[in-house]
């Protein structure tokens, strides 16, 4: 654990990517094999399952620190991270971390099987014998949220330096299902055991957001366009008579989408499709909200199948007849894909239609239609590009439609978390309903630091009432709120819920009365949900 704690500290103490990679490389060179495996697992989002309730952790920490629960909670709010709040608040004199990382993870896994009393005793014992960084890491292992400021990409780079195996190949090796407890390091890195290879997806090729006018991309003939569908990116694999569906988050979701089971036999063995898990009804895509009802569920009810049916909209073919096609140009892969989809003859498998355009202006016009066809915008792929690992600039671009906007009045404010814990940055906005202001959304992001400070000062000086952490303020300022979608929501006072709301700009040019009305919101709702359920 000491070695891992030092790794975390070393990575925290630099902003240089090279230094972080070097720290990891050094760590790989020294760490015992099972610690290495767990480190790779943790840094590629494979963590032990959460083994106890966070409420328990909070209560134990508050009691150990002899502070009332409300004060623990206030502190947690300011720190913004539960693992760290506990590490800071629980007293300890320990100044090193004995035991290996693996031993600590094994303890975390074992907690699940313990009685309440044993659990508490084990956790508190660890808190007392680890230093602050050690406690922080241990808590992170328990709570299951392990983000420590180093991407999987950097970890793979360091592992490549350590092993001499090429990065792209390693990225592929680390995909899919593997268990740090059931695999040897050499096996993970080099050998290809049959079971793992059969289900293994390819690393997804990711697009950058288009940040220049499309005209700057050159000759339109060199580009292929499709709509960008608002579902879940997925890879659908049929190998050796088995079907595997992976989400972009490298989660195996085969059982969540029984609709696809017909494809197990309808597609030839050795086929890998890249596409979108998309809710679909009456011949068109449904709102993403519909799909959300299925995301968190492990078992699928008949009702969900009926109310939130999905199709797979394929846009790429990565493997055919067991052969890796990623080195082919997308134009060639697309031709093969069309044949595969056609021959499968399954309504649940659709192809993402190519948008034909002769000039960039044609494409501009098509993009404006995006909301009509329920897409998020346009995807642009260079015709001669191969399928690359991860996010690389230049070949794939996403060109999303401009967000919807509405002008709202600042009505409530709450202190933010972590960095913003001293500032009132969690803001609630309202629109007019006659002479009344009706709150319709919260938004946290989008202001500059300077604007944030101004809003904070305004809130502090114009507080009308305090409700716990929330303050109501004198209505005065108008902000333009941008969002990606709007849905009906009986749970909200305004009757609508926005998707990805954020503050687009502070409309200092507008007065209170210039803000939009509830009717304006309802008009947007009707314009964008026609036909959706």
């Amino acid at each position, binding site marked *: 654990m000491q070695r891992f704690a030092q790794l975390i500290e070393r990575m925290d103490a630099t902003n*240089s990517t090279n230094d972080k990679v070097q720290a990891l490389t050094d760590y790989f060179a020294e760490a015992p094999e099972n610690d290495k495996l767990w480190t790779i697992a943790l840094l590629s989002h494979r963590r032990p399952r959460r083994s106890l309730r966070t409420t328990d952790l909070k209560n134990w920490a508050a009691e150990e*620190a002899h502070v009332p629960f409300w004060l623990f909670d206030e502190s947690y709010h300011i720190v*913004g*991270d539960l693992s760290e709040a506990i590490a800071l608040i629980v007293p300890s004199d320990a100044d090193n971390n004995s035991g290996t990382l693996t031993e600590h993870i094994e303890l975390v896994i074992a907690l699940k099987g313990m009685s309440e009393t044993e659990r508490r005793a084990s956790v508190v014992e660890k808190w007392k014998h680890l230093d602050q960084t050690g406690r922080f890491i241990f808590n992170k292992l328990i709570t299951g949220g392990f983000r420590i400021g180093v991407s999987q990409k950097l970890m793979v780079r360091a592992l490549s330096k350590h092993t001499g195996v090429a990065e792209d190949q390693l990225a592929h090796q680390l995909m899919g299902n593997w268990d740090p407890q059931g695999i040897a390091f050499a096996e993970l890195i080099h050998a290809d055991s049959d079971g793992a290879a059969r289900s293994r997806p390819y690393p997804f090729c990711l697009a950058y957001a288009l940040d220049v006018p499309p005209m700057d991309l050159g000759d339109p003939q060199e580009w292929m366009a499709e709509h960008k569908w608002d579902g879940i990116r997925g890879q659908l694999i049929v190998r050796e008579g088995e079907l595997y569906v992976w989400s972009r988050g490298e989660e195996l979701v085969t059982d969540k989408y029984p609709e696809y089971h017909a494809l197990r036999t309808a597609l030839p063995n050795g086929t890998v499709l890249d596409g979108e898990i998309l809710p679909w009804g009456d011949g068109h895509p449904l709102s993403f909200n519909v799909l959300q009802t299925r995301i968190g569920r492990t078992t699928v009810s008949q009702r969900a199948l009926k109310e939130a049916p999905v199709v797979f909209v394929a846009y790429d073919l990565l493997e055919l007849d067991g052969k890796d096609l990623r080195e082919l140009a997308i134009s060639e892969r697309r031709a093969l894909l069309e044949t595969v989809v056609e021959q499968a003859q399954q309504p649940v498998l659709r192809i993402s239609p190519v948008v034909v355009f002769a000039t960039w202006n044609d494409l501009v016009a098509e993009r404006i239609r995006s909301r009509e066809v329920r897409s998020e915008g346009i995807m642009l792929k260079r015709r001669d590009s191969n399928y690359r690992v991860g996010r690389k600039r230049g070949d794939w671009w996403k060109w999303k439609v401009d967000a919807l906007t509405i002008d709202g009045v600042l009505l409530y404010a709450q202190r933010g978390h*972590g960095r913003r814990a001293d500032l009132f940055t969690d803001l609630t906005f309202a629109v007019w309903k006659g002479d009344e202001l009706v709150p319709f959304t919260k938004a946290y992001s989008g202001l500059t*630091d300077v604007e944030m400070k101004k809003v904070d000062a305004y809130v502090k000086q114009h507080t009308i009432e305090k409700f716990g952490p929330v303050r109501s303020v004198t209505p005065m300022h108008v902000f333009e709120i941008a969002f990606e979608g709007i849905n009906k929501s009986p749970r909200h006072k305004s009757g609508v819920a926005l998707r990805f709301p954020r503050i687009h700009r502070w409309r200092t040019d507008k007065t209170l009365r210039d803000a939009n009305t509830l009717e304006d919101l309802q008009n947007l709702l009707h314009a964008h949900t026609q036909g959706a359920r």
Partner: protein
Amino acid sequence: MPLITFTHTGMYCAAADVYIDPWRPVDRCIITHAHSDHARTGMGHYLCHEHSVHLLRHRLGADISVEGIPYGEVRNINGVQFSLHPAGHVIGSAQVRVEHKGEVWTISGDYKTEDDGFTPPFEVVRCHTFITECTFGLPVYTWEPQRSIFDEINAWWRTNAAEGVATVISAYSLGKAQRIMANVDTSIGPILTHGAVEGCNTAIRASGIRLPETIQLTQATDPALIKGALVIAPGSAVDTPWANKLRPYSSGIASGWMRIRGWRRRSAVDRGFALSDHADWPALNATVKATGAVRVITTHGYTDQFSRWLNEQGIESHTEKTAFKGEEVPAASSEETSA
């Protein structure tokens, strides 16, 4: 009427017609220390600790009417006794003790209780009512002993110097900057300062206080000298064009906020050192207890939380609104603002 009231102008002692750390112009005031949220321009007359006189002139203008007194000296104003007592916050910082008809109030200003080896150490003043800051009034804020923090700073500086890289640390121009120069291992290399820091150094030396040798950084400074140096600058100067001359450098911040990993990481510097000139949670609690105060008024920081906690401990407490800022939060990196 309470001995001290909180008006829209500042903390006011009506019996003596004197303000303490006012934020709007008044005729007569007592100043706890020379930081800009406590010592403002436009006052008719300033009374402060003798080591703050040059600092006030430096910051507010050479022509201000200011008088300095030593710690412990009692001033009688309209029958009210005022005296200053070490606050341990920055050089010249003082708690203001106010006594009238047997009732004692103490105004802490900003304070820390750990002896930093440079600033005269904090002294507890027994009182009935204690007006306290609580910038770090939450139990997550506990400071490591400064020795171990300076060990880290020295190790960092030493490594950078060995690699031929400058070490740039951002710290308050008054207080933190001098605390750092007085405690680092000056055998590692020279200490270079930003003009704002050197201005305070000059005012402090003029008060007869010794500081290690420092060299103000200018366009003419020899680049070879910068390489192994420790450069001390206010946060507003780090990562601006001013710092370009220093490249390549490793950057750090010394601030109590650096206790929290998230702040550390988001501050976009290489190193964050949790070094504060404010009392941490244990020190705030110990001080409140040691004053023997039956009533505690919190003025800035986590005021609501600290007052509630004190009330639950059986010490009557409430919050008053002031214009004090405590330790300012370091600027976030620009890439964070658009997120």
